[in-house]
Every structure is written in structure tokens, then in C-alpha cells.
């Protein structure tokens, strides 16, 4: 059953691999030009009104970006190009898992043959292992390729950010599985999923609710600032992701088809 699920997601997975590959090569290739690019940006930012500069944040980070290869890689790759796209990849990979089979009526083929529990966990195992592979390969390939390209970058922070990203992925994955089980067509869960991905950082703009925004955690901000994993947030991500998945499993067990 695992291989059937992998076969179902293989093309999407391949597209993500190609896309991430292009983005990674692009990120590394742009490294020598970052100083030039940031010079322009810094000047432009200085000319901006005060409230806009507040939104832009700490300008010293821009200087660090210019001088620190490691910081450049973590912030621009795990923190930006890969990190920010990760929830979208999860959404596109996970949402069709159940609702597409229900919408297309192919689920009957499985339901008649296997216990629901087996169907559910096989789909979960296949899709999570697929997206986890994508994440691990590209998280660790980035410092390796930077070193090959002649820059000096260690692996330690990459690994720490990776741990946070795996847990953040687990959180998004759990929610998307829940949506996929709840709905009977593909459009509604995709729209709800996009809304979820966009709403969390927007809600996080409110000072009291800044913790709702999981992107600083997903992008490894705490690792870069403190040099360690944010364990409290990690625990929260793990529990909430597991809760969504558990609820989805119960719903799937009880659902009428």
C-alpha cells in the first residue's frame, strides 16, 4: 500500500525536488552578489518612513548577511526559500490524500479491501516520509553544496534548524490531513489550507498573539539568535500536530462513504 501511495504522489514530489534544486543552486549562486544587492536595499530602507523601517526590522541582520556565509545560508535557504515554501509543499502533497480519492470515488477500491486504520496510516506514512525526505535532503544538501562552492559553512545550525522544521512540518501536516479527511472534495480543503498558511503570520502581527505565527520557528530564527532549539515551541508543535492527526484518524474511522 505504501508503494501505491508513493506512486500517487511521485510527480508532485518530482516537481518539488526540481524546484528546490533550482532554488538551492540559485541561492548559492547569488552569494557573491549579495553585498551589492544589500547595499542598494540598505540605502533604500534608510530613506523609508519610520513605521516601515520598524516592519523591516533589525538592519544589522542585513550587514551580517553580507559578511557571514553561514548566516546567509541559514536565513536565505532554510529560513526563506525552502522554509517558507515548506507548508505550501505539504499542502499540495497532503490535501489530495483522502479527499481526492473520495471525490474521484477511488477510495471504494481501498475501503472494500483493507481496514480503514491500515488505509489511513499507510497514506500518512507514505506522504510524511516523502516530504520529510525532501526536507532532510535539501536541508543538509545546502551546507554541503556551499562548501563545494568554496564557502566555509558548518552543519550544526543546519541540523538544529532542521529539527525545528521537521516539527513545524509535522504541525502543518497534521492540520492538512485533518482538512483532507473532513472534506469530500479537493477545492475547499485547499482554500482552507491556504487561508491557514496565510492567517497564522497575519494573526501573529498582533503583539499579544505573536506566538501564533510559526514562521520564525519554522525558519530557525531562535536557532540563529540563541544557538539552540526552542524546546517549548517544539513541544507545542509536536502536540498540536499529533492532535490534528489523531482527530483525523478518528474522523476517518467513523466517516460515511
Amino acid at each position, binding site marked *: 500500500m505504501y508503494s501505491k501511495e508513493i506512486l500517487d504522489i511521485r510527480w508532485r514530489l518530482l516537481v518539488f525536488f526540481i524546484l528546490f534544486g533550482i532554488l538551492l543552486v540559485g541561492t548559492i549562486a547569488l552569494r557573491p552578489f549579495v553585498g551589492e544587492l544589500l547595499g542598494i536595499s540598505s540605502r533604500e530602507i534608510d530613506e523609508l518612513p519610520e513605521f516601515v523601517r520598524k516592519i523591516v526590522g533589525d538592519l544589522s541582520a542585513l550587514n551580517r548577511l553580507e559578511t557571514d556565509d553561514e548566516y546567509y545560508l541559514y536565513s536565505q535557504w532554510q529560513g526563506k526559500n525552502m522554509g517558507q515554501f515548506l507548508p505550501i509543499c505539504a499542502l499540495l502533497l497532503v490535501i489530495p490524500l483522502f479527499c481526492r480519492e473520495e471525490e*474521484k470515488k*477511488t477510495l471504494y477500491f481501498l475501503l*472494500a479491501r483493507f481496514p480503514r486504520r491500515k488505509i489511513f496510516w499507510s497514506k500518512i506514512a507514505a506522504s510524511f516520509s516523502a516530504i520529510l525526505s525532501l526536507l532532510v535532503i535539501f536541508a543538509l544538501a545546502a551546507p554541503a553544496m556551499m562548501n563545494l562552492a568554496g564557502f566555509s559553512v558548518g552543519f550544526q545550525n543546519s541540523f538544529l534548524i532542521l529539527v525545528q522544521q521537521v516539527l513545524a512540518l509535522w504541525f502543518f501536516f497534521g492540520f492538512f490531513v485533518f482538512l483532507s479527511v473532513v472534506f469530500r472534495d479537493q477545492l475547499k480543503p485547499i482554500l482552507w489550507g491556504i487561508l491557514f498558511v496565510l492567517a497564522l503570520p497575519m494573526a501573529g502581527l498582533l503583539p499579544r498573539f505573536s506566538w501564533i505565527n510559526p514562521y520564525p520557528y519554522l525558519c530557525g530564527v531562535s536557532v540563529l539568535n540563541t544557538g539552540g532549539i526552542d524546546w517549548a515551541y517544539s513541544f507545542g508543535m509536536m502536540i498540536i500536530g499529533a492532535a490534528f492527526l489523531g482527530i483525523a484518524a478518528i474522523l476517518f474511522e467513523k466517516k460515511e462513504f
Partner: protein
Amino acid sequence: MGIHLEKGLLFDRVKKTYRNGVKAVDGLTLNIPKGCVHAFLGPNGAGKTTSLKAALGFISYGGTVSWDGKPVEAMRHDIVFVPEEKRFYEHWTLVETLRICSKLDKRFSLQRAREYFDFFELPMKKRIRGFSLGMKTSLYLSLAFSTEAGFLILDEPTSGLDPIKRDDVLEIIRRQVIDGKTVLYTSHIIPEVERIADTFSILQHGTLVYNGTLDELKERFRVFTFSMEEWGREEAPKGVIVTEQRDQVTVLTDNEQAISAWNKKKECFSEIPTLDTFFQLTIRGKRYV
């Protein structure tokens, strides 16, 4: 009290009401013995597919369904199902279908599936999304017939097939029973049922209105045709089913007294019902109770 037979498929007081209040199945009690072809007949919305879904555990329901005395989850390894909408994984080819199905299901015979694909002349390298309705039906049936299981549940198994393929499929279904399997299937095509079903049941508005064999039906029931005027002089006995068409009244009955009395009358015409007549009268007729 429900039936307490242990072998075969048993529906015991099965009820299903959907959230919108529609009573799809209302107290269905029915035993389908092992080793036969049993046909579910009924108009659209009679509860045939819902009954199958209940039996397969796809929906929640009241009452019980047991397979050889066991719940469906304990017997899933012995069941194969062909749904009403034969939609398979459209992005697969048959080569991929064979590869995946043989990994997916231990009961699946690769050799037999290849033979069925050849038999139905299905293209191996074409994506399933390019298949016609008949080809999709042939594919689903090929997979079902290539899977070793004691019970075959087929929801309109001949939909979309041309008359030649339909004949072939009916022959294959018949052969399943010779091999000791039990087939439960639904159909709208009465001559098909007449041809291959050992037993059949008619559902209407979620309730069972008849269950038995064709021979029993022909032995027990008679159809009488009266003129409107003649029927006006009759007093309809209990249990008859009556339809009025233009100036004629057709009466279906198993009331022995009525059959005996009307057989002696020259003013009415008597005949043994065909399954089609029986079905039409049962569904369309007004029942005197």
C-alpha cells in the same frame, strides 16, 4: 425477531436514515445463502446501493449485517466489491495497475488479471483516464475476478458494456458460483437477472417487497387482466397488487382463493408472471392491504 442463519450474508433489521431525513433502508431482513447469485432489484433510490454500503461497512446503520456469522471487518479478506461508479486511478496505466495491485493485495492473481485484460481487449499502456465507460467497467471487473474471495459484491456490473461483453460478463459471474463463490449484485436490467440469478429480492422505498427464486414466483403468483368494467364488479382481496392502464386492470396476486376463483372466470385473462411483469407490477401497482 430476525433470521438466525449462520452461513452467507445476513441483513438483520438493517436501517439507515441519512442526515437529511431520507430513510434509505427501513428494517431490511434478508439472508443470502452461500454459493448463489443473488440479485437486488429496485427502482432508483430503493436502497440497493445503501444496503450494499451497509454490508461493506462504508456507512453507519442500525441493525446488523453478518458474513458467515462474522462482522464485515473480520471477513474483508474474503470480499471483493465493484462499485456503481467504476472509477479507478485514472493516472495509472494497466501495467502500473498490475504492479500495484499485486503488491497491494495478496489475493490478487497477476496471471488471471492479464488473461482478463486480454479477454476484454484492454490497452496495457494507455492511461485509464482515456478509457471509455465500458473499458472502465471491464477493468474493474477484471480486477475483481482476479482477486481470490468468497463473496463478490457487484453494483451494476454490466453498466456501459456492449451486449456481447455483457453476455460474457454474465457468463463469468455464473462461473464464479460454480467455483463456490457467492455473488450479490444489483441491476436494472431484468432479463440479466432472469438469466443468471438463483435468487432475487426487490426493494422499494428501503423495504423488502419480495425475496425468493424465479421458480417460486412463477409457482406462487398469477397475473389477471380484467376490463375496467369487470374489475368494478370485483371486490379486491387482501394482498393483491393492482395497476390500471387505459381500460384494463392488471392484478398480481398470490391469494390462492382469488387465483382459484378468477381462473374459472372467462371474463379475465390469466398468465404466469415473468420477472419483468412481476417487477413492474410490484413497483408501479397499488397494494390492497
